[in-house]
């Protein structure tokens, strides 16, 4: 990934970038060459041509000593730019050291520094600059210093904010534990990580400083004659602006041009930084094949799955999801088929990124707008969702299924009372009256073993376990036929996890809702579910009764997954099973079995053909050309 990034950084990519670069180059050239080429002409008085208007010899006219104004404007580029840049750099350096050091000092000093910065920020920068310039006495040095000091608080605040982001990180904590001294911490860990945004604002600030310095000179507080900068020239030109506008206009335009250059440069830098931030950050993988492999063949289900299954609450076939990402279109879910009977609890396991959550979202119709979904069948309670209009589908899903997410804190609206959140769905979708809804909400809370008094509280007053119960209660309100629980206990402690899974089992028993329980915890799923689907790289690789997970898995991936889980009785002298390598790059899925690069049992065929999910026996299906042998005792049971 580093190659495209680097080329993007060194070559301006947009027209705007070219314009900014050209303008900057012209300024640099002018500052370098100006005094050498035009310096002599700018200082040569000509008593015969004082205060002339524009002419062929003097395109911008002359000043009161008869010096050529064009030459003077061009020569003034160097002092004007130098002053502005020095003032900015001085101010930035002071501000950044002040602000960034908040990340590496002790808590008491940090509070002091923060107060100091707040205090300094309370004074308007321009007033400070003017005040200091007056106090320090008119002159270039004084003006420079005044401006630098005035810009310190702004930079300090920015650096402080940025550094706060770094100071909370574990790597800074680790560096502290390494005993690195404060300046080392600042130099090695804080500054490099905040440099980019600081550079942007410094560039923009240089433009402002240029204008401000010109302003001070214009007021007679900055550069003093016989030296001159653009502000000085503007000042002198203004005396006769009504007679001859050009002598005043020219330095004004020069100031504008330079300020604009810095502004544009800042914009361009900011733009490219933002683009880089969006560049994919995935680990580099094997070289990408030039073309994407052909779409996967549809795994054929057994004949019985193809027609409408009446007792099935949910039936999905060949679900495929495509998502556009900045790096290209990915297919994180590729041909998943699953069905759930009423009252059945099915587990969906797999490692991070295998597509579990996206599958859940697709089933609930909650995928992001830009996702493209394909499926052959999608039935909920017998009704064909693919044939419905958007609105009908939404209604059918809202009343037929409930989704419980991993993080109940973000799934509940923090500003609404529990009562409002519980009753919202049935009041809009079922048209229940207020009192009816309230009574049902109380019943639902009792169902999940929470006191009805909770109805009046807000989410932040509840513990994580209580919030998850509220989520389940809210799901129960619509009396769903299907509950999809996506890692509902991952954020919770084991004891609370146990309570929540028991609650789900009870709900299922009492309401005969089907439950799709998504988790990466193989042991948890094995204990809770009847049937388990194992996902790998967007496909279901094995579907088996939960009691076979421990000993009778047939797919090499499932076997490895199960063996890598330590249990309380694990032999501490035997290393745990691991699978070398990582999941395939979603941008470049290879041909053949998705597990093939990591599979210890692979043979020739695996790299060429995709194994389809096929029946080993009723209730056990596996997508592997060479399933592992079944242990003898497992087949007997």
């Amino acid at each position, binding site marked *: 990934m580093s190659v495209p990034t680097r080329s993007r950084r060194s070559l301006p990519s947009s027209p705007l970038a070219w314009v900014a670069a050209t303008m900057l180059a012209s300024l640099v050239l002018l500052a370098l060459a100006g005094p050498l080429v035009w310096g002599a002409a700018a200082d040569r008085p000509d008593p015969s041509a004082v205060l002339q208007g524009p002419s062929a010899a003097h395109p911008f006219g002359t000043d009161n000593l008869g010096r050529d104004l064009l030459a003077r404007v061009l020569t003034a580029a160097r002092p004007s730019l130098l002053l502005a840049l020095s003032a900015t750099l001085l101010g930035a350096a002071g501000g950044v050291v002040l602000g960034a050091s908040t990340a590496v000092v002790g808590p008491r000093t940090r509070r002091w520094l923060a107060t100091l910065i707040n205090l300094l920020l309370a004074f308007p920068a321009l007033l400070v600059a003017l005040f200091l310039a007056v106090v320090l006495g008119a002159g270039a040095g004084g003006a420079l210093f005044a401006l630098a000091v005035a810009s310190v608080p702004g930079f300090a605040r920015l650096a402080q904010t940025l550094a706060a982001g770094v100071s909370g990180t574990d790597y800074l904590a680790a560096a502290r534990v390494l005993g690195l001294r404060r300046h080392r911490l600042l130099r090695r860990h804080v500054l490099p990580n905040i440099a980019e945004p600081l550079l942007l604002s410094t560039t923009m600030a240089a433009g402002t400083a240029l204008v401000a310095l010109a302003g001070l000179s214009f007021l007679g507080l900055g550069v003093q004659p016989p030296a001159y900068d653009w502000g000085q020239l503007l000042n002198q030109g203004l005396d006769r602006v009504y007679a001859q506008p050009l002598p005043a206009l020219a330095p004004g335009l020069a100031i504008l041009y330079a300020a604009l250059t810095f502004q544009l440069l800042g914009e361009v830098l900011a733009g490219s930084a933002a683009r880089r931030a969006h560049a994919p950050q995935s*680990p580099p993988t094997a070289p990408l094949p030039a073309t994407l492999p052909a779409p996967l063949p549809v795994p054929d289900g057994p004949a019985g799955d193809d027609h409408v299954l009446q007792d099935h609450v949910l039936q999905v076939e060949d679900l495929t999801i495509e998502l556009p990402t900045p790096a290209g279109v990915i297919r994180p879910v590729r041909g998943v088929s699953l069905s759930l009977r009423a009252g059945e609890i099915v587990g969906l396991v797999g490692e991070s990124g295998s597509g579990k959550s996206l599958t859940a979202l697709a089933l609930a119709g909650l995928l992001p707008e830009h996702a493209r979904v394909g499926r052959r069948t999608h039935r909920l309670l017998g009704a064909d969702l693919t044939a419905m209009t958007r609105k009908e589908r939404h209604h059918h899903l809202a009343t037929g299924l409930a989704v419980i997410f991993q993080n109940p804190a973000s799934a509940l609206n923090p500003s609404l009372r529990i009562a409002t959140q519980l009753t919202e769905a049935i009041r809009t979708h079922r048209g229940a009256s207020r009192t009816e809804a309230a009574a049902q909400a109380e019943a639902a809370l009792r169902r999940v073993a929470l006191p009805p008094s909770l109805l009046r509280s807000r989410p932040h007053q509840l513990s994580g376990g209580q919030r998850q119960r509220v989520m389940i209660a809210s799901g129960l309100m619509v009396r769903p036929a299907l509950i999809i629980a996506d890692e509902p206990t991952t954020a919770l402690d084991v004891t609370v996890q146990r309570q929540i899974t028991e609650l789900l089992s009870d709900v299922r028993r009492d309401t005969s809702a089907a439950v799709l329980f998504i988790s990466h915890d193989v042991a948890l799923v094995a204990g809770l579910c009847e049937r388990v689907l194992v996902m790998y790289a967007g496909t279901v690789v094995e579907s088996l009764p939960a009691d076979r997970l421990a000993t009778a898995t047939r797919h090499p991936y499932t076997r490895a997954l199960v063996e890598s889980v330590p249990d309380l009785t694990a032999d501490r002298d035997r290393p745990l099973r691991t699978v070398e390598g990582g999941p395939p790059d979603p941008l470049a899925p290879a041909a053949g079995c998705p597990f093939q690069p990591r599979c210890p049992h692979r043979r020739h065929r695996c790299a060429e053909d995709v194994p389809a999910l096929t029946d080993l026996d009723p209730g056990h299906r596996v997508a592997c050309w060479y399933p592992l042998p079944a242990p003898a005792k497992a087949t007997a049971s």
Partner: protein
Amino acid sequence: MTALTLCQVTVRYDGPHGPVTAVDGVSLDIPAGTTVGLVGESGSGKSSLARAVVGLTPLSGGRIILDGREVGGRTVRARRHLGRRVQVVFQDPDTALDPRMTVRQTLEEAATAFRRLDRRARSERVAGLLDLVGLDPRLADRLPRQLSGGQRQRVAITRALAVEPDVLIADEITSALDVSVQASVLNTIRRLQRQLGLSMLFIGHNLPAVCYVSDVVAVMHRGRIVETAPTTALLRDPQHPYTRALLTSVPILNAPPPGEPAAPALPALPALPALPDEKLS
């Protein structure tokens, strides 16, 4: 080999409603060359304890004793002294490493934090360290974002080992990882124990993972240690009701099929906490 002893360690924070005691008089003994596991629910004060031991959070009370001598972590000098002997690895592989430094730079910084090494010695050290945790030496010039979570976590462990500490504190180092990746990190820890004879405090909420690497397990509940016992004894005969609740709640792969209760009902589980009690958290 070094022994670490925590004596009545207390950590308090300023909460919005007055001080909150995160760690409440914890005493714990980590004998030389052993690994002590620390389990407990989230918010029970495990991480506060870890940060206090290495001086990242000030102690409100108690003492930390290394080989019989009390250490402090308040000043940079004291922290340098402490850091040379006690190192820590944190939970989140995403923020564990400086995103702008390559693996090599990170490890060299740690390796030279307390001793001078010339260029050759430095690169040999980096290669040796990567080898120690079973990472491909070709990964040395990668940036953290070019590594997987498990690789990043192993680099973070390597950084801690680079200073050759006597004591390693591992704070939930496998919590953010997938099981298959967790397995390789746990294996790495086991191997390091044998090869280096480290004393270690291994903090986690996943009981099986903690038990797999620990000789002794301490159970923490609401800022206090409620039980400490050798791993096998704790598993066989838990004493405190909270330990028992914890043990019965651990999902087990070989559980009986559903239909029958998966485990005996939970008499030991604390009743649902009342609402006002929970407002603090």
